[in-house]
């Protein structure tokens, strides 16, 4: 699987590249700013671009480069790394489409298995949303009657995993339950929240996020 890595800090860039190589990915190029990244993507057509949100030319160079890659090269997955868990970044990245896009805290890189999993999911057209952001959104108090309170604890767990962009199979493995049980939970959650069920995982993420956002 071919990867490009962009970060203005050489330590992070090199570190991420080495970890990815260690996990069996092929890092085909590194860039230190948004323009360099776009050049690399145009030249190599990688499976995934790993992008630091904060890069030259300005404070949000990475975020804008990520947006350009997604519109110009829809086949390239984009995994955005951020120093801070910020819902507004997540909403911006995953607003219109959650297909082949991810938003992760930089810290997650140190858990190599999880990180590699996230890269693969994005490469495969799935979505990734950092658990810290999800727990912020699921856990925050809401104005008026809160339908989330009608969910069972297990259903809340499943909801959080859905928001993180995980498939039913992945959720089943994490919770040590069968996929059928997960499906039942999902059905029940969508019923309680009054959401229409979506067949595809990345659409499901959008629906859940749109619900959590309000």
């Amino acid at each position, binding site marked *: 699987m071919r990867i490009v890595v962009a970060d203005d800090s050489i330590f992070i860039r090199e570190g991420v590249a080495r970890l990815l190589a260690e996990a069996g990915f092929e890092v085909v190029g590194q860039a230190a700013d948004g323009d360099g990244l776009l050049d690399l993507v145009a030249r190599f057509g990688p499976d995934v671009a790993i992008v630091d949100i904060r890069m030259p030319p300005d404070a949000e160079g990475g975020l804008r480069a990520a947006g350009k890659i997604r519109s110009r090269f829809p086949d390239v997955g984009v995994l955005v790394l951020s120093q801070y868990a910020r819902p507004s970044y997540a909403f911006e990245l995953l607003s219109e489409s959650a297909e082949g896009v991810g938003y992760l805290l930089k810290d997650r890189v140190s858990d190599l298995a999880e990180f590699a999993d996230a890269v693969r999911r994005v490469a495969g057209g799935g979505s990734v949303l950092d658990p810290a952001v999800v727990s912020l959104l699921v856990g925050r108090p*809401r104005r008026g009657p809160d339908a989330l309170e009608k969910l069972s604890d297990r259903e809340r767990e499943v909801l959080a995993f859905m928001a993180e962009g995980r498939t039913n199979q992945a959720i089943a493995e994490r919770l040590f339950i069968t996929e059928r049980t997960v499906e039942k939970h999902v059905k029940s959650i969508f019923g309680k929240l009054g959401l229409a069920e979506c067949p595809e995982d990345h659409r499901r993420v959008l629906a859940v996020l749109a619900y959590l956002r309000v």
Partner: protein
Amino acid sequence: MKRGRYALGLGAVALGCVESAALVAVPRRVPLSGLMLSIALVAAWSFIGSGLVARLRRPENPTGLLMMLVGITLLAGQLVVAAAPALHTFGAWMLPLHWVVFVYLFLAFPTGQLHSQTARAIVMVTFVDLAILAHAPLVIGQAGLGGALEDASWAIGGVVFLSASAVLIWRWSAGTKAWRRTVGLVLWPGALTLAAVSYFNVSRFMSRSVGLVPQWAFRIAFVAMPFAFLAALLRLRLARASVAELVVELDEARATGALRDALARALGDPSLAVAYWLPDEQRYVDIEGRPVELPGDGEGMTATIVERDRLQIAALIHDPALGEDPELLRSVSAAAALALDNERLQAELRARLDELKASRARIVKAADLERSRMQRNLHDGTQQRLTSVAMAIALAESKLPSDPEAAMMNLRQAKEALAAAVTELRDLSQGIHPGFLTERGLGPALQDLAYMAPLPVTVEADLNGRLPDQVEAGAYYVVAEGLANVAKHAHASIAEVNLVRQGGRLIVRVRDDGVGGADPNRGTGIRGLTDRVQALGGRLRYESGPGQGTEIRVTIPCG
């Protein structure tokens, strides 16, 4: 009001005319010389006439009516010479009464009301003595008890008139300079006249005759008395001429305090103090910008508010005696309003300067505190963790050849400690400055703040692009600190954040539906925010009535 003023005054004049006519026309039981008749008429009419003038000039003050009443009772008393028995008895009853009103008039000067227990007691005793005791012989005969009671009435008269005289002198001496200036003209002649009446009473009691000279001296003094009242009133009017001088002086009053001195001269009150109103802060300060409390009732001084264009600008803190001449106060205030408003701006500037110094000191202190807190966090937390990482790696290094599994364990610990250190550093750097704010701008940064708040918060930010860095940071901290306060103290169920950019200003509102009653002097929350906002040339206001929730409203200029 105006009609009442004339009606009562003219009614009294009419009554005086009827009495005078009766006195001249009725058949008399004893001969009355033309001279004595003239003296009675002149004395009575000097009271009625001066009283009328006083009544018209100061309708709210009963003094004028009291003066007229002296004249009327005096005339009524003269009817004692009438041949007709009914008129004679009526006159005999009324004759001593004018002394009661006379005593009342002096003791009540200048307000027209009796303020002390002593004064009321003296008037009561005078009334009982002159209206009842003195008439004992008429009712029960001259001999025996009747005569004794009459003698007693002369003795008591001697005492009460002397007491009244003493009260007047005491009141004069206890007053301030302005007070003496206003009422001295009346109190001194009053005291002398009352002392003379006392002397006549005592002489009568001791059956000694009073010489012709004292009698005539007294009659002249008595006739002149109302003119002393008029002169006192005239003096109040003359004081108004000092307003013209004031206007000239105002033009020259440049030095600090010169305005106060000019006002003190114009009002004749050296104790005068001026307090300037700061509308933004709803409080008074002196010319140096120091806080001033206006005196309450019964605190020895009285405050008169000065307005300009119907807005409060200052307060004159003066001797209560000046309240006797509201017109003088009004004209002085009006003449000095512009100058007072100018000085008010000076005072406001000085108050701001003081506040600025204080807030600068607070900001420096807050920054020092923050630095030492950061130092502690770095030292106790992150630094220790990083040291432990170095040690764990050293251990792993030495164990690697012999015991790779133990080395692995050490490396895992090092990784965890590093992750924790990174989290700490991130939180710390967020606290120093939310880098996120610089990247994304105010709206999204506040939205994220709201997501992280422990209560539902709605954010409406109508900003139309980015604002200067300092303004964004200021507004961000207002909202962050505001929401932190809401979470800590307000017991609120929701909070609303609202930002609008309007006419070169950013208006930030943070409102909750909690218990309210926030106190800026407790804790540093609102104080610190105010300092920060003022440093940006902005203004912070808040409302926090008990049970009303709290609303912080901040306006920051943003170009």
